[in-house]
């Protein structure tokens, strides 16, 4: 991005303006990504705002967001580019029909023409990675849940991430017109390869601390009182300390806060908390554990 940010503070302020509250580590990583032209690998449990970060960076810079959702079995033709073979078949058929009408001998000429034509950009379907490289306007490339890729497929990303180019045998190498800002996210279901990690800046996102979570609630939930936001953040911290199967994520905290506002509850007590717990915890075992912990600790 040529229109970069001035300093780390500007990144933090810019993200805050889009409603994303960044801490030191996040702002520094985004700033360095732009300054060093390196991708950022964001890793952390689900619901800590990894994808949201990419969206907010795009919104902040006014760039277009191009998203590559990774899944098992994702291949070159879905990630980089693909030749539109249906259209190519049609083109060949159309060529044959023309040829039938014309004189013999023009056939060789015709084939060269057809071949050049078949592997031209007209028949190239760009997929997210190539699209991000070729985009003339500023873009943010989001490679979401990169840990779902198989280890072999990960290698697909390497050329794009380190050199910002894509090699297409029939066309040659397509280099980026302007370097996109790349954000990769991972839920840490597996260890990513060293090769990938080495090329990236690493940004582990964990659940926010109480102050930041309260600020997030205040920013994202309209009409929430400061006191309720504080209480919500503290209850959630208390639950996260419980060794649950799936601790409540930030998005679940926000859902809970919205619900409390909707029910016009301005003060959470044990009973109300237990009734609305299913918004925070999605496992039966976790629910039982949390309910028990909240009610028991109430007695002593």
């Amino acid at each position, binding site marked *: 991005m040529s229109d970069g940010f001035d300093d780390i503070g500007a990144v933090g302020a810019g993200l805050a303006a889009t409603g994303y509250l960044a801490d030191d580590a996040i702002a520094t990583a985004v700033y360095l990504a732009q300054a*060093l032209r390196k991708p950022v690998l964001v890793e952390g449990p689900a619901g800590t705002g990894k994808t949201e970060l990419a969206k907010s960076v795009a919104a902040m810079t006014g760039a277009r967001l191009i998203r590559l959702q990774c899944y098992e079995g994702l291949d070159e033709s879905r990630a980089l580019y693909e030749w539109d073979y249906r259209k190519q078949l049609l083109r060949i058929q159309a060529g044959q029909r023309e040829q039938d009408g014309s004189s013999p001998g023009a056939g060789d000429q015709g084939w060269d023409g057809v071949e050049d034509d078949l592997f031209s950009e007209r028949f190239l379907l760009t997929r997210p990675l190539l699209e991000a490289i070729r985009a003339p306007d500023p873009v943010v490339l989001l490679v979401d849940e990169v840990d779902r890729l198989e280890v072999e497929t990960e290698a697909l990303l390497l050329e794009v991430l380190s050199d910002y180019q894509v090699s297409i045998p029939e066309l040659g190498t397509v280099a980026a017109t302007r370097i996109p800002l790349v954000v990769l996210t991972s839920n840490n279901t597996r260890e990513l390869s060293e090769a990938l990690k080495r090329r990236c800046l690493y940004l582990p996102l964990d659940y926010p601390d109480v102050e930041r979570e309260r600020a997030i609630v205040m920013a994202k939930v309209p009409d929430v009182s400061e006191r309720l936001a504080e209480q919500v953040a503290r209850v959630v911290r208390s639950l996260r300390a419980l060794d649950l199967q799936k601790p409540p994520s930030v998005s679940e905290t926000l859902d809970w806060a919205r619900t409390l506002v909707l029910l016009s509850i301005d003060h959470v007590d044990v009973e109300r908390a237990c009734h609305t717990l299913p918004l925070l915890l999605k496992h039966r075992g976790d629910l039982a554990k949390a309910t028990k912990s909240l009610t028991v600790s109430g007695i002593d």
Partner: protein
Amino acid sequence: MLAALAGFVDELRAAGMPVSLTEHLDAAQALTHVPLDDRGAFRAALATTLVKQAAHRATFDAVFGVWFSLGRATVLGDGGSGDDLVASGASPDDDGAGGDDLAARLDAALASGDPALLAEVARLAVALHADLRADRRLGAGSYERYRTLRQLDLDGALARLRGRPQFGGDDALDPLETRLAREELEVRAARLREEIEAEIRRRLVAERGAASVAQALRRPLPADVELMHASRDELAQLRRSLAPLATALAARLARRRRHRRRGHLDMRATVRHSLGSGGVPVEPRFRRPHLAKPEIWVVADVSGSVAAFARFTLALVHAMSGQFSAVRSFVFVDGVDEVTRCFEGAVDLDTAVRRINAEADVVAAEGHSDYGAALEAFWARYGADVGPRTTVVLLGDARSNYHPARPWVMAELSRAARHVHWLNPEPRAYWDSGDSVIGDYAPYCDGVHECRNLRQLGRFVEAVA
């Protein structure tokens, strides 16, 4: 600056973190982009370029605190409000004015939770109580920390504060609020402890130099902690990293199984898909292969010396039970008992361990490991169930207290089972020394593996499944 960075990177490597040359260069480049007087940004820039695994973050923080601490210590020393208190000559251990004043400050800092106040208290407490001058050993500051905390009487302060209405004393708050307020108090206390530790390190560094302190502080990475000798803190940390390890292993195994070989050609799906390309079968479609999952039996020695190791292995295997067609577990000392039921419905390791301790009947005679007797009992009671799909994993140091080894049991077992593996938590160098009879059993095992830490354990489980 570059020299300091190089030293820092060397220290990270010495602590076991794999920092590549590229990463070192990235860090150096990143530093040209951040203001060096902004400590937060400086630290974040180094962390984001050098640390590539969440588990390494703690190591990074510790080394960073030591290596780049001097700057901050001098800044803080510039006439803070409490310097007079230290300078006024309140001698250590003297419960005079200095101590009282400090206690009041401690209460105020904890009650307000203001980070600056907490840091101030930590600084004063260390200056008054840590007694650094008297102690020039090559420690990492744990003695000084203990001393400071004892003199500061943090627990007493916490008890005092819990009595205040603000923290739920006198039933001033409803139960939930009380709980939340007290948790907040605990968090502040934890923060104070961290500050004290950091302050002690700063002082140690000022006195002895960063390299010496960093060396004294060196701790193995979580995955490299020896299971047999882990401290309580380390065990707690390991317990936390067990669940992610199980998830990661399970995901990797599931993926590997799916891709190990492709299934038969699925004609129907191929033809259906070919319609998109005018009837030309451009992409063949395959059936999903049928999965053959092994059945795994874990037989673990749970006598004192190897109990922690056995628990971790049992928990890991059960957390991954989806990857096996069946998991059965047995524990023994000199008798043997099946404990599979203890893991059924158990949500966490602690519950399962408690149930094992309460229910399993593992002591037959004297309560010291007797591998021969235990294996014979195991074979007599459960041997009939061992079939050609069963993989048996035995855990233990094979220290049989000079009882007869009875290796014929292992011979029978390896004939009946698909595979027999032995995991030994002892370093390989100690095998077959003293009362260890691992050499008697090894010929009948498909593999005898040294398994001293989570890294080795994870590698084994992945290989066997």
